[in-house]
């Protein structure tokens, strides 16, 4: 017994000291991270940052510490710093970093960017929760209004869920029977006799499309190529609306003469028209998409992976125009896009104010650009905070109104609670579009 006790003590001491020394280093790191996480939960962000910094000073390769620090910065409102910290994590496909990035995008009201990052996250994890997030963000992105559009020879406008139309009604594209089949053209908006409650309107060539409040698609006008998707080619036209879908899942429509591209709420792209496709058929090659637009013969599509594709004519193949795109616009043949890094790429050169710069990805405004539009005569840029700036001849003019901006044929439209406004980029001015007699200055 007297021999055994010291031996046991010696053994216990060796084991204890050995274990403690071996685990101390790891414990120090873990304790910094745990403490940091605790402070984050307690919303003590500066203390959290301090703990994560300590951990990073010991191990600059610690992913958890870097992510925690980025999160602390984000919570303290320093988004650029948080993003900078996350760069190596994102390059390494860190799931946590993507989750934080989606949160940051949502906080900065950049739904399109959030959607793309959420999609990347879902692709990385194949996790149901992440897919659900994509769906949620997609519905946000697709929920923006579209109360006006202009086709080849007619226009559509929604006021109080009623559709109004004006222009030529040769093929019944105005929806109503007024002047149907004649070469006369109405100058004032008049009721299109749409039987439902309208949510969004679109014009493609000489065909009118309406998405009703239930998410169903309706069409009126020319259907010579079967572009209405009703499994028939109309040889002779008749006035009135035809319901195309009853699945309640239509989000956006784009098209040109003889073609109809439909984006459903799940981000899938569908097509009908030229090429003998008489019923809506899914275009599978591009995967999920977030935006579509058409102008002239060109159709452009933005995928959830941030790739911008375009094709000219139905027989053309889809060609990738750009990568890392979070928004684009197509107006009067001018394709303009904003990259994930907020750079603006336009098809023509603009004189820039000295505060703005250029990068290999495009124009860099002195604010983070979310959306950009151009019809060749100027550039309209929307800040991530919603404010709008018009760039013309090297000078910027702040547009007083905020709202959703989109293109309609050759026009750029700003829509908000006050109404629908047509933006004149050359003059940096806006006119309100009224249902009773055109424009109100």
């Amino acid at each position, binding site marked *: 017994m*007297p021999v055994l*006790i010291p031996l046991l*003590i010696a053994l216990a*001491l060796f084991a204890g*000291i*050995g274990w403690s*020394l*071996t685990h101390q*280093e*790891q414990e*120090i790191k873990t304790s910094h991270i745990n403490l940091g996480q605790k402070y984050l939960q307690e919303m003590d962000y*500066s203390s959290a*940052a*301090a703990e994560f*910094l*300590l951990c990073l*000073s*010991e*191990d*600059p*390769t610690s*992913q958890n510490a870097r992510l925690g620090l980025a999160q602390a*910065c984000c919570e303290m409102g320093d988004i650029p*710093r948080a993003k*900078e*910290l996350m760069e*190596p994590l994102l390059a*390494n*496909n*860190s*799931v946590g970093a993507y989750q934080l990035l989606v949160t940051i995008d949502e906080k900065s009201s950049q739904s399109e960017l959030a959607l793309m990052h959420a999609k990347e996250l879902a*692709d*990385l994890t*194949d996790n*149901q929760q992440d897919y659900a997030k994509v769906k949620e963000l997609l519905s946000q992105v697709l929920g923006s209004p579209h109360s006006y559009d202009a086709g080849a020879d007619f226009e559509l406008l929604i006021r109080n869920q009623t559709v109004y139309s004006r222009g030529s009604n*040769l*093929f019944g594209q105005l929806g109503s029977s007024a002047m149907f*089949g*004649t070469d006369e053209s109405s100058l004032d908006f008049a009721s299109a006799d749409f039987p439902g409650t309208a949510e969004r309107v679109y014009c493609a060539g000489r065909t009118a499309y309406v998405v009703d409040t239930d998410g169903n698609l309706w069409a009126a006008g*020319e259907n*010579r*190529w*079967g572009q209405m998707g009703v499994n*028939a*080619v*109309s*040889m*002779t*036209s*008749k006035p009135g609306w035809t319901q195309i879908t009853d699945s309640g899942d239509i989000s956006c429509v784009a098209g040109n*003469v*003889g073609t109809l591209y439909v984006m459903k709420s799940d981000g899938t792209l569908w097509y009908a028209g*030229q*090429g*003998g496709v*008489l019923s809506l058929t899914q275009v*599978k090659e591009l995967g999920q998409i977030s935006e579509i637009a058409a102008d*002239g013969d060109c159709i452009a599509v933005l995928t959830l992976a941030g790739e911008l594709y375009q094709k000219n*004519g*139905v027989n053309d193949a889809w060609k990738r125009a750009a990568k890392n795109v979070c928004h684009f616009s197509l107006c009067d043949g001018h394709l303009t896009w904003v990259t994930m890094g907020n750079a603006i790429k336009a098809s023509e050169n603009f004189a820039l104010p000295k505060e703005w710069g250029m990068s290999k990805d495009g124009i860099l405004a002195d604010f983070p650009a979310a959306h950009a539009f151009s019809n060749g005569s100027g550039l309209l840029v929307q800040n991530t905070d919603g404010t709008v700036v018009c760039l013309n001849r090297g000078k910027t003019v702040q547009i007083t109104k905020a709202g959703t901006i989109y293109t309609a044929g050759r026009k750029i439209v700003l829509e908000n609670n006050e109404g629908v406004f047509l933006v004149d980029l050359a003059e940096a001015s806006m006119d309100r579009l009224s249902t009773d007699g055109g424009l109100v200055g």
Partner: protein
Amino acid sequence: MGLGAIIFLVTLLLAIKRKIKARWVISLLLCCALLGGAGVFCFRYTASRTSGDYDYAYLALRCMEKGMTQKSSIYLKRSNADSDDFYYAASHILLERIQGNQTLADIQIDVLQDMKMDSEQEDLLEALEKAELQSLSRLCRTLIEMLPLREDELQKLEDRFQSESGNDYSENASEYGLQMRINCDIGENDVDQAMDDAIELIKKYPNAKNRLLLASVIAEQTYSGGHISSEDFAPEGKSVKDTESKESDSLRQQYEELERELNRLPQTDGDINSSTNKRARELEDQIDELRLMSKNIFAYRALNSIASDTSLEAEIVRAKIYYAVHQYDQAMEILCDAADSPQVVLSGDRSVQSALQMVKKVYRTDNSVETQGRDFRNSLEFLFGYAHPELMNFSASPIAQAFSEQIIEDQKSYNDRLFLVDIDTSQYPTVCAELAGKSTILGRIAQQNNIRVVDSQQNVSIDKIEYLTGTENFNSICFAVDNSGSMSGTAINDAKDALHNFLDLQNIRASMSLVRFESGAEILVPLTESAEQLKNGVDTLNGNGGTNICAGIREGIAALTGSVGSKTLVLMTDGQSSFDESVITEAIDQDVTIFTIGFGDVNDELLEYIAESCGGQYLRATDSSELSSVYSSLRNVIGNKVTITYTIQNPEETDRYFYLQDVESEMSVRGNYIVDPEKEQACEVFVSEKPIVQTIEYLDSRRDYSPDETFTVWLEGGNLKQVASASLGTDCTILSQDETYLELGVPVSLAGGVYALNLKLSDGTVLTFDEMLWIGNSLDSGYYYAGDLKLWSSKVVKMPDGRIVLSDPSIQDEPDDEKKLQTLSMQLKGVAAFSALADVDNLSLGETGSADLFGVLTMSSSDRAYTYSAVQTILSGRSLLEYNPEHSCVKVR
């Protein structure tokens, strides 16, 4: 310790009072000693971890002042100071700011602001936050002056700073003086002089510490390629035997003997697992090792001289020596093993523990971040200088820098460490996914170790996994190098170095070839297993002419034709060129995987497309100086492939994706694929569906002339050269044929009716196209009215069943109101068959009704909806025309 003291007192008391026996007294006293010893150890250990002074802060700030930021960072690392020490924290902030890392500096300032400070400290912090870059040096001085150090301490530290930063000690022959001289030599990159000084040092002061220093200097000398001879170690004025030549000769004899044995081995049969091949590999390894030893005798002697030294410092020197003799993996293994060794634990130095753990983490795991950052580099350089802490210049010696760079470069990922090569759905619903990447990850996948495989949101059970590694299996690699004019100069030299480096270090079992391309392309070295032969070819590259990527690929494929094992083409270019898609098809047909490497003004999209189409990856370098690392990163990827075969349970869904996640590294790959059964079954031979109308009257007139007469039918389509025979109601004669047309002679003996076209192909397949020939009695041609439509045809027939058939009719609308415009103008290339009830006499086909349309419906330029850019073909095949006075439409049947 307290417990020990209590036991001691109790034992003493009991012993004095003689309450316990002597053996118990001894036992309890032993326990006291053990507890006391443990207490002292813990106390000293803890004390060693906390810096009680500001020595390192002073030295770090002085370095900052002198612009030596790297040394400054190492001093701060050595301090092991607590984070809440204002002076150390402020020094860190200052260093971050000097190094331009505003982000981290700002965060640290935020954190420091929450600490208790006096007004002077607050002022300094404010100045740190706002100071311009130019005034940061002044802040260093302010902070030095604020340090709570006495005058004499400051003087001592200044002396230390002067000596450690490399002042001249040429006159000082003391042990310290000689050590500082070596430090100075290393700082000035004069390794020869350092070698002389180290030898002088060891001669005068032969102790373990100096032996370690000499070993370090030998490592530096070996790495720099300097010469060391036994003469250098001879006592002054005496000569010694040339032992290294003898040793070198002995080693050479040994490896030459092994080479002879290798040559005597019988020819291999291609089976890599055969005993002959295994023996060959063993011999090759032994030969390589002996060659290395014979070239680096003194490095290996240095290793022997410190073999008994088990300190952490010695481990680091050993790693440096192995690195110096290009045994990188061995060097890394030493560092990784040291990370968990008792020496590092007992050292009590948190910084070195962290640095070693970090090295271990990045080397042994597949998913590390921020290894390109300054902090990581500083930690590595601190580690390599750890063996000689007082000799600062060893932290920035050539080995320390190169070794750090190599570790950093190794972590740089130019390519994905796991990527999807191909998804084969030819056996659908059995799917075969091919993955490539780093062998460690592929190994885990092959063992199904912690991996998740999903197909379209459903976990799949794997039928089979096949794993091929680049080191175990034979590969054929072709390097296609851009030799264009733009490559001349630095770029081509970098490319040559990169290839040399790749060939020196490559561990892939392969035969390799070299192709150069410019405006044309040429195989410089056909497939060979000799790296030397390939290197000779590489040396002939000179940079001349234009850039023709296609020529490079074609010649690369040609170089690999007929080769064994996996075929890989590595194409490197710095330019742009036109591209012919057919080379991709050629590469796929030949089973050649293409990796593309680009730098400079390349067409990234094109190179990415080529690589992705051919199962490889595109590796982008910023400039030619990175080529070595880029090629090096391919070493771990080429030839490594895993093929996963699984069967889908819900094959109905055709829009699918494959997903695999390596849970350990959190890496995942995903690939979408669309299964198109129709496409798989699509027949290559086709005939455009434009039926032909013939009148009985015409056939009769020809039959009257000769019963064996034929009339000609002209068919358009694709791949029609495959047609061996044809029948159209009866056997026909093929008058002429090409890929796009078929001219048939049809006997005039046919009776009225509708006939199908049967084509028998050369492989025996019979294709049937229904309702291709319509024969009926001729009716008047002209305008026929149907609902609101007006049709015109030059050939109208009445079929035996009563149907009225219009051949190639043009279709217009008939407005019911004067104000309305005529809008419709279409053409049907084929037949429109109206029901038998039509009132033919009045050329009316009825107010309401339907007609079967066969053929191609196109829009005419006079149609109001006509648009020049639109496709004018509306429909082809069979359809149904429905008409009435208000509206007419065509539906697909």
